[in-house]
Structures are given as C-alpha cells and as structure tokens.
C-alpha cells in the first residue's frame, strides 16, 4: 500500500496504522509531511511495517531536512512512477 501524506500531524501515523493494518507500507510524503522523513521517525515507522519512505525533494530542500536512510528523495517524475508505475493501492490521508 502506498500512503500519500501531505500533513505533518502525528495523527497521520495513526491513520496509516488503522487503514493499513499488517500490510507492508510505503509512504509518499509531500509538503509539510516530509518531516516524517527525519531520522527521529524512522524507528516508529519501521515498527508500523513501513519499509520505504519517499519524500518530495523540493519540500525536503525547502525545510533543510536530512532524510533518514529509510527515505529516498524523489522528484515529480519519480512520484508519477510511484503512483502509476505499479499496482499498489493508493491511500490518500
């Protein structure tokens, strides 16, 4: 499941857990939600079965966030591929 997250509220993590259950999850972070790319969130995300985090590169750069090594910065072309390149269910938070 690919979770699109654009809000930085911790509530988003609860939504991911509720809607994703035990499924393996990937996150696509945009805007203020790129805060979840920070190393301080990594452990919690891994405990939620998040195995990949993709963060919009322009949003990371604007906030000077150094992403954890669970996270990959992506540009818009790559975001398109994430959304349309496979058969993952997309959950918009």
């Amino acid at each position, binding site marked *: 499941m690919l979770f*699109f997250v*654009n*809000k930085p509220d911790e509530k988003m993590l609860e939504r991911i857990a509720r809607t994703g259950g035990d499924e393996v999850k990937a996150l696509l972070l945009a*805007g203020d939600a790129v805060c979840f790319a920070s190393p301080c969130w990594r452990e919690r995300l891994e405990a939620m079965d998040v195995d990949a985090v993709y963060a919009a590169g322009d*949003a990371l750069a604007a906030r000077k966030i150094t992403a954890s090594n669970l996270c990959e910065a992506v540009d818009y*072309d790559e*975001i*398109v591929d994430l959304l*349309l390149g496979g058969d993952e269910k*997309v959950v918009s938070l």
Partner: protein
Amino acid sequence: MPKTLTILLMSGSAENEDAEFATRLAQAAVKKGHKVQMYLFGNAVNISKKEFPIQGDLHIQQRLVEHIEPTKCFGRVAELTKAGADVSTCHTNEHARGIESREYVEGVKWGDVGGTFAKYLMTTDVLLSVGH
C-alpha cells in the same frame, strides 16, 4: 503503458502547498504520457478562475512577492489544459464562494461531483486526493 490519474484537489492557492504540489504532479504525469483528470473541489475552485492582476505598484515587499508568485497555480492550470489534462470544478463550491460567474482559466470546465467526478472515476487507474 499510459495510465489515468485522477487528482481530487481540495485546497486552493496560498493556504498550503497542496495546489502547487497537485498541479506540478499533474504536469509531470502529462509530460510522461499519462492521462490526467483533475477535479477541483472545496477551496480548490479558486484556482479555476482567471487571475485579475492589479495594475501599478503592488505595495508588497519584493521578498514577499518572490515568495507568493511561484505558489500561484493559475498559469499551471492553463498549461495543463493546453497539454490535454481534463480539469473541472465543482460549480456548487464556486457558488458558495460567490465566484460562479467569473471567467474560468482557459480550458477549465464547469462540473459537478455527481456528473463530472463520478465520470472521471470510470476511467481512473489511480485516484489521489489532496486536501487538508
């Protein structure tokens, strides 16, 4: 293989980064050969209308102008429709904002959630909703 992405955008210009993200994403998808449908819902209807720029001195600090200008989406929406994206609005949300009779950005279409959005869904591979 080209797919169809429908973006349900529910934020307008300036209030957050949703509209900028959604329109830039849509541009990238169109450029890659995918079909894009965008339904402007809620505050997003405010990016469906042509901008009426003020003439003369803006009386805005230059650094604020430089901050604001890239976030405006009107030009990107026009580019999107010109490139083949299908962009429609919820006319009832326009009505709620008193802007229903104002001119649309070129290529944007009048719509409603029952007719337009549901119709978009019929040919959608991925639905992405972007709101706050």
